[in-house]
């Protein structure tokens, strides 16, 4: 395989896809925890924050990498997509700002202000998830602002928000115990329908937006070869639903299952979307080959990426290992 104008865009599209997927999973559970804030007591909130405290910053960096790859590898697409999504992007950014700073302020500001910062944490998480779901819907609909598209995007905004709260609850089942864990199981049971609705809406809508995508899925033999994707998703949702009826279990067995299941669902959904839209980066308008930067510049980035990405994965694993187990006792203090 030679690195040229036909292979490099594919490699970078794959890298960007990987970043988006990791972001949606990793920051998905951070945002989900924020969305569940109003349902928790003040003590539980401290514990919920403790479960994501060491990770959220690095998790958000995957968004920076994804948007960075879009920016550097597909500059024309970056401009087209972000100008079309100007307002939801602004809402998301304000949300990310509120969420990120509330994290710090809630514990450092005078105690009397803590509740306000908790509210800001929730609002920030809500604005971010809603805006991301809205952008997902607009993207699927081809970035065209019509009334029907906006209505669909509003639906996906709601669905992604509930889906994030589901994966957030699944994370809490894994990272907490006792009363909070029991509560988290109840939250997950409430949220699983959002996950199902979101996946269903996007999966059903995508083929009808363009005949090209319809052909890709429903012509023979693709329809048979691809059948496992939706079937596995449905089976997984059923399994998740059953497991949530029996959690938390004695000895905390299978506390990992809801989070693993939610992650797998997101991976499946993501591959489905990738399959639908390839080779387009701006749906039905601009392909990754047309939008790509010059091969020389992409090569320079690729060399660095191949060297640095394994290191990033290595120390990310180190961090999750250091903070493994149930989330308790999180403080800056050491030996006292």
């Amino acid at each position: 395989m030679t690195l040229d104008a036909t292979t490099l865009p594919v490699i970078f599209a794959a890298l960007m896809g990987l970043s988006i997927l990791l972001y949606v999973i990793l920051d998905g559970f951070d945002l989900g925890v924020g969305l569940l804030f109003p349902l928790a007591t003040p003590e539980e909130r401290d514990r919920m924050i403790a479960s994501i405290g060491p990770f959220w910053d690095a998790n958000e960096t995957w968004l920076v990498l994804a948007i960075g790859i879009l920016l550097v590898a597909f500059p024309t697409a970056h401009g087209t997509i972000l100008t079309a999504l100007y307002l939801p992007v602004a809402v998301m950014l304000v949300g990310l700002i509120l969420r990120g700073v509330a994290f710090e302020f809630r514990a450092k500001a005078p105690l009397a202000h803590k509740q306000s910062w908790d509210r800001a944490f929730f609002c920030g998480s809500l604005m971010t998830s809603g805006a991301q779901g809205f952008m997902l819907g607009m993207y699927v609909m081809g970035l065209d602002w019509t009334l029907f598209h906006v209505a669909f995007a509003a639906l996906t905004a709601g669905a992604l928000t509930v889906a994030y709260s589901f994966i957030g609850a699944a994370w809490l089942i894994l990272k907490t115990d006792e009363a909070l864990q029991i509560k988290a199981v109840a939250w997950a049971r409430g949220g699983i329908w959002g996950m199902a609705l979101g996946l269903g809406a996007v999966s059903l809508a995508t083929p009808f937006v363009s005949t090209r995508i319809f052909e890709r899925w429903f012509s023979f033999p693709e329809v048979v070869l691809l059948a496992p994707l939706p079937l596995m998703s449905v089976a997984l949702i059923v399994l998740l639903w059953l497991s949530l009826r029996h959690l938390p279990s004695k000895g905390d067995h299978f506390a990992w299952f809801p989070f693993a299941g939610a992650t797998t669902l997101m991976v499946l959904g993501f591959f489905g979307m990738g399959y639908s839209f390839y080779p387009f980066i701006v749906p039905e308008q601009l392909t990754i080959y047309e939008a790509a930067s010059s091969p020389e510049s992409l090569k320079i980035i690729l060399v660095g990426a191949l060297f640095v990405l394994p290191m990033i994965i290595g120390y990310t694993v180190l961090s999750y290992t250091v903070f493994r187990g149930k989330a308790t006792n999180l403080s800056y203090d050491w030996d006292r």
Partner: protein
Amino acid sequence: MDTFLLSRIQFAANISFHILFPTITIALGWVLLVFRYRYARTGLAKWMEAYMFWVKVFALSFALGVVSGITMSFQFGTNWPGFMEAVGNVAGPLLAYEIMTAFFLEAVFLGIMLFGARRVPPWLHILATFLVAFGTTMSAFWILVLNSWMHTPQGYELRDGIVHATDWFAIIFNPSMPYRLGHMLLASGLTVAFLIAGIAAFRRLIGDREESTLTQLRFGLILGAMLIPAQILMGDLHGLNTLDHQPAKVAAMEGNWETGPNVPLLLFAIPDEAARTNHAEIAIPSGASLILKHSADGVVPGLNDFVAEDGTVMHPPVAPVFWGFRVMVGTGMAMLALSWAGALLLWRRGADALPRPFLFATTGMAFSGWLATLAGWYVTEIGRQPWLVTGVLTTEAAVGDVAAPMVMATLMTYLAVYLALMIAYIGVIFHLAKRAAAGKRPTREEPRDAPIPVPAE
């Protein structure tokens, strides 16, 4: 107001707000490493207390830096699509390297640095602190490489109006990079030195008798006294470099309209771009010639050289550059005066007997680094106008086609959010200082044996 002007104000607001926090974290990371290492070596509680206090400020500043930085990476696309379309082949790899070599490093090890002290061995905690400091500095390196390239581009060729990289060594080590990087790193060091001294002075004023506070006061003042001469020298070198590569910017900084010898150094003036002259000048004869050319009859470029035959102005707006430069230099002089007076007082009287007026002045200078840094960035960035990338791309050519009311609405939102966060940030730093001065451990609000002593504190 049109989309172009609003987009400029919006980006200026975002980047101004953003740079405040990296300016603190770049140097504070290294200071924390010193505190942490001193504690590991001496076992003295005062070093740990200093670390514990400033690591909170670091975490807060870092979070603000991250979120405002993300905003900017999106605004390249939402408001300035022409930038990446024209120079993406150079800017892209540099930004990618910043994300890959710096952002992940600092974000991941920040978690271990903040919350891992009890979970990892001391060497790993010190290593995590080092990697966070290293990451912030790497980030500064890449972004200043890109910014410097925008001022003094080389190592590229134009094909159909699009920049293509030809020589990455030339791009990275472009002529203004070493000076700009040095100037910014020193600015960060000074900002942190005066912040530490200022907050420690405030704690002394409200009756803090902790030994750690005295150590921090001494540390901040001496660091400031050591860095400020280096910064003045670096600023001079940077100015001479700018004279070589961007003479129009220097002409605006000096408020000099006509090229010629014996150009005075203006201490005060009101530049008038319409009449192309200055009002109410207070000047030191031949001062500018002496500083820029090291001789009284040295020829200094004038703004009138940068007006085309047809009257098109190809130099930056004069007043903001002229005044930004004076605010920066004035703040630097105040820093020199305060820190050297401080060093003298420390030597003569000791840290515990500094006079109250001096402590008041030091508290007042706590955020002086921000003022000088912002003023300096305004000089260099406004001084590059009308270019976004000197000689390659004008700012106007890069702006995106977004409806003006939409830009206005988001601008107002950002400004409101930034203003509120600014007040909260400064308020919280003083709140933390008061709490520390009252000798209250931050965990006091919770029962001592609570399972979770204020998470993410």
